């Protein structure tokens, strides 16, 4: 098992990073009054881990006994019936699913599954909660329709069902849904926290971690705990005992993006843009989300850029990312950004060097 999974805290007590949040959650559970929750924060900050720990806190270890179900729903949508298939993880106490997998029909999924949960409402026996929990992942990818349908259902069935929503950015969740939930912001762990976790892992594994090494990994990890621990394990596999200046293997796609960036810096022409397009396609083909490609590309470009231009370039990156999210063909917009950058940069070069 990877260390990421191996040393994942199972209970709220063992949480290392967001201790304050964990304590609050614990209190929440203790008070028997659990509202709907919305967890949001950057990837690798520990949202899921906290949710799982919370569930365990609520229902005891039984919540960890999950089984995978591939369920089909028959939804009666007015004139026709729609067959929807979705994979869920379910324990006796909760159901976990990824509604955005259903694509544009996510609305039906959300409604249907909540209704079903309400129907099979657990009998309030001793010590057991009278509600089930529905964990919805990637709520920010839910369509607006689904979110709208969610807000009514949330209220209607709140007696029998609690929702735990999880997403990266709360801005994509409609105001209505946000106001019905207790919003829990999970920050990306600070580098000190990451170092702490790494040292904990190192101790557990019985490794000698040289001073500064953990800090280096933390620095490279982009404040993502997952990445930090994986990098740590990678280093362990690559070379042990550690040396403090040991190379930390980079992410491949990030390397590739930096290659693209240097391509762009070298030459600005439609022809070069065409080559860049091929490389961008490569990245996208390998399932790397276009948003992070664009973000990373900007990051790489900024590294090599004159301070004068940084502001403008950032502006355009934001502009094209916005359009990319509105549109469908990400490549158009990433490419448009690259072209824009080339244009700005070339203009700048001509202006400065003649």
């Amino acid at each position, binding site marked *: *098992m*990877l260390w*990421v*999974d*191996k040393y994942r805290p199972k209970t709220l007590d063992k949480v290392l990073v967001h201790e304050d949040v964990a304590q609050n959650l614990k209190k929440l559970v203790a008070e028997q009054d659990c509202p709907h929750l919305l967890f949001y924060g950057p*990837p*690798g900050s520990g949202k899921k*881990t906290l949710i799982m720990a919370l569930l365990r806190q609520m229902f005891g*270890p039984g919540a*960890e*006994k*999950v*089984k*995978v179900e591939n369920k089909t729903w028959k939804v009666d949508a007015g004139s026709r019936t729609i067959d929807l298939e979705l994979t869920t993880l379910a324990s006796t106490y909760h159901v*976990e699913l990824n509604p955005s997998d259903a694509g544009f029909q996510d609305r039906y999924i959300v409604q249907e599954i909540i209704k079903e949960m309400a129907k099979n409402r657990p009998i309030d026996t001793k010590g057991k909660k009278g509600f089930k929990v529905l964990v919805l992942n*990637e709520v920010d990818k839910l369509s607006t329709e689904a979110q709208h349908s969610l807000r009514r259902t949330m209220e209607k069935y709140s007696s029998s069902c609690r929702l735990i929503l999880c997403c990266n950015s709360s801005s994509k969740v409609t105001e209505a849904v946000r106001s019905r939930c207790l919003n829990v912001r999970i920050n990306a762990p600070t580098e000190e926290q990451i170092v702490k976790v790494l040292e904990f892992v190192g101790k557990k594994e019985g490794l000698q971690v040289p001073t500064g090494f953990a800090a280096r990994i933390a620095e490279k990890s982009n404040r*993502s705990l*997952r*990445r930090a621990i*994986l990098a740590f394990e*990678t280093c362990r*596999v*690559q070379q042990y005992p550690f040396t403090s200046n040991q190379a930390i*293997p*980079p*992410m*491949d*796609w990030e*390397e*590739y993006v930096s290659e693209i960036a240097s391509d762009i810096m070298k030459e*600005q*022409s*439609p*022809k070069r*843009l*065409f080559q860049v*397009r*091929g*490389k961008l*396609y*490569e*990245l996208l083909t*390998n*399932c*790397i*989300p276009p948003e992070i490609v664009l973000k990373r590309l900007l990051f790489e470009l900024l590294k090599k850029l004159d301070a004068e231009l940084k502001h403008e370039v950032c502006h355009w990156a934001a502009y094209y990312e916005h*359009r990319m999210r*509105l*549109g*469908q063909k990400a*490549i*158009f*917009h990433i490419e*448009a950004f690259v*072209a*824009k950058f*080339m*244009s700005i940069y*070339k203009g700048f070069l*001509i202006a400065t060097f003649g």
Partner: protein
Amino acid sequence: MDMEMGMDNDMDIPLPEELEWLEANSHLNDDYEGDLEPPEPYPDEEEEENKPQPQPSKQNQQPTKPTLSIPPKPTPITDPSTSPKTLINGKKRFRSDGSEFSNSDEHAQLEDKRSRIDDLGTEIDDEDWIRYSPPPQNEATEVVEPVVVEAVEKIVSRFASEINGDCIPVTGLDGDRVYAKMSRVEEDRLKKLDVKAYSSGLISEPIHILMQRVETEAFAKALQASVEGQSDSILPGTPVVNEKLWVDKYAPKSFMELLSDEQTNREVLLWLKQWDSCVFGSEIRTTGDEVLSSLRRHSLVAQHQKLSDRNFSRNFAGRFSKESFKGYNGLNQENNDCKAIPELWNKKAKCSGPPERKILLLCGPPGLGKTTLAHVAASHCGYRVVEINASDDRSSSTIEGKILDVVQMNSVMADSKPKCLVIDEIDGALGDGKGAVEVILKMLAAERKSDIGKENVSKEEEQGRMSSRKKHKSASLSRPVICICNDLYAPALRPLRQVAKVHIFVQPTASRIVSRLKYICNKEGLKASSIALTALAEYTECDIRSCLNTLQFLHKKKETLNMLEISSQMVGRKDTSKSVFDVWKEIFQKRKVKQERKSASGCSSISNEFDFLHSMISNRGDYDLILDGIHENTLQLHYHDPVMQKTVKCLHSLGVSDLFHQYIMRTQRMSLQVYQPSIAITVRSLVAQNEKPNIEWPKSFQRYRTMLMEKMDILRSWHNKILPHISRHMSTKSFVEDTISSLLHILSPPTLRPVAVHLLSEKEKNDMAQLVNTMVSCCITYKSLKSDPLPSASRHDAVSDTSMLSFDPPIGDLINFKGYTSGHFVLASAVRQVLVHEVEKQKILKGSINGSMDPIDARSKGNQTLAREENGRPQSSTSGSSTSHAENMRSAKNTSILGISNLITNHVSSASGSTVNAKASVQISSPGDTKKAKKPSSGSFNFFDRFRKSSSKGSQDTDAKNKPATLERDSRPLLFKFNEGYTNAVKRPARIREFLL
């Protein structure tokens, strides 16, 4: 009139000397025609044609016959069209050429009869039937005329309702229409005549008698009719409908009249001629190699001199007809010679068999005369055209029968002309049209198969075969098939495109069309300037049909063609959609010629161009594809763009179109689609160049989509395989973003030496175990990919052997970017082999544990157990091979499941005895374990060791590693009783999992 009658007589029996004379005549005629433009139309001829008079109708019949050398111009009446026609009758071996065009119903019965005569004729001799056949034809034409003529004589009225019984419409020159009654009496007479003619057989007196009678009648009626004609001309006041469309009226009737590109015409003809040997048999093979080669030569020359003036080509045509005629004569002799030498003959016949490609596919925009060409060329070559078009039933089953009828059968009845199948609008309806395509392909395939088989047979039989006729008859596709379509790239035609000979129709030059239009206008008395006609032709994109219809429409409205009107809505525009390639080309390429002309008119040209592009793009629809194509090809253009401004704008527009598209799709507001074309036009204004763009079909986006889907599927299925408590924390995105690179590093540690397992050091074994554990928990294993070695792997270590072991969910591919070398270490294949074994073992182990536990339990606890075991296990396998050890464990465990109670008893009973021993073994940790492994006989002992840990509250296990487990277990109440000496001491049923943790 006398002259004409004389000619008619000539037609009866074309004697050789007459033929010569006619040939000479025709040459004169040709030359004359070639040299000068026709000075003026001949009103006489036209009048005759249209007036309801007996003589004209007779003559009406005559021009319909195919003439090789009649140019599409009015011919001087002095040597009227009859002379070339006769020539043809002599030259060609088909007697009933004319009947194809005079497709009046009255002919049907006659044709029947004629064919019977012909059948007789064919059996005699070639020469003979040429001589014999004309009479019946003549008879036919002559016989029919009276019917009409006399009917006209009876009652002529402007209103059909005023006539009792059948009537036929007759149209005068000025477009006035009268209805002429048809009398029953005449029909009887016709029948009588028929019988007579039939009984008389070949040429005989009755015809002359008949002719005379007809003549006298005709004369009498001519007088009357002329009077009537005058009265007709007085009558019209209100506009009357002219039923016959100009398009039909002036449709080319002979090969030389065709307006389409001459080279295409010739090639079609050549292709048809190649069928001769196959269809008509070698004996009547009139188009010899010389002719074919000359045809070929002509088309070659035509290719070079395509741009030469029309005069030249006309002369050319004249010469061509002469040559082919001579060729025929020469060939006939040759044929005779050849018959004497059968071997040589066979060889010849073989090499000039049916053409390589048995299907001709004509394609081009509507109105260029594809159908006309097919019909004219086929009948020119002596085929009877059978047309299947979109209006017919084209379902697969019905069409198959039809095609088989045409293509494989030899007509028994009717005329013995072979048929030529013309499938019109084959691209029309997708579902239906496919039927036809399938049938044809099936036949071709069958033939190819049989050809292979036949090859051998035919070689053997060749000796005894006198002619190749029979052989060809047995072939499954023995008649020419011409398919006509508008869109060559219609999906239904894809298979056909590969096997057919494709001819793409190009627009004929505007001047050609204009001259023809002018001629027609003159004939119809419509005033139109050449400039206006040119504009019209250009406007309709040289669509003759639409030109003619427009002109006729104008004529009806008594208006003149006027330059300005053309672009106004008066003339209907075709609602054609260009192919998407054409659209792209329009976008990327500036129109040079137009630009020059339009530059004068300034800003109106811009709006014109905009209108044109807008309508073109919106006619095409499919904006998504169009914009994809623009995206794909824009960067390849050579536009001047020093600071990339244009590129930025281009991509910006594309982005806008994408937003548009997305918005439209989301909100389903399709009406917003109308704004899409303007985006494309924006791009055009930025990047359009004069040079010809090299346009590629936009593939990359589709490729990206499909590959992305593939990889997503791989990831998803893998994700489903992983245990949920791990997989729930790993979304696809986070996996690709954060995990994959590290995971690959972790899975292939460079520290692992490629040596046998038992040679590994303690630490290495530990690492190995951890690696195996990771692989198992992530459901990754190696799989041998013999055919397709993992590209990334082969890149990384060139030494690795060909039978590659690569990751089973091919996660390595996810970092396999083109042109990027990752620094991943790749394990030696030996190590991978070992790993595969270990992983398998581990899986089995896990499976057995899971099997023994409650499935839900297994998820959470089993894994903990496993993890713990994992830690212990490698140590235990220090000296013994890990394989045997694992085997041991497994078998032991299996037994444990089977005989729970027995084992328990065993354990517990032996516990007291061997506690010390066990303790010792545990305390010596790894060496102790080794001992255990080495003693397979003491399986129970092995188990006891473990069991004791789980069951005994009292036994103070000092093993540090197992402490937490013990503690945890201790928290549970589990009571045991045992009575020494009894084997069945434990009364309570217990499950193994309760002992395991």
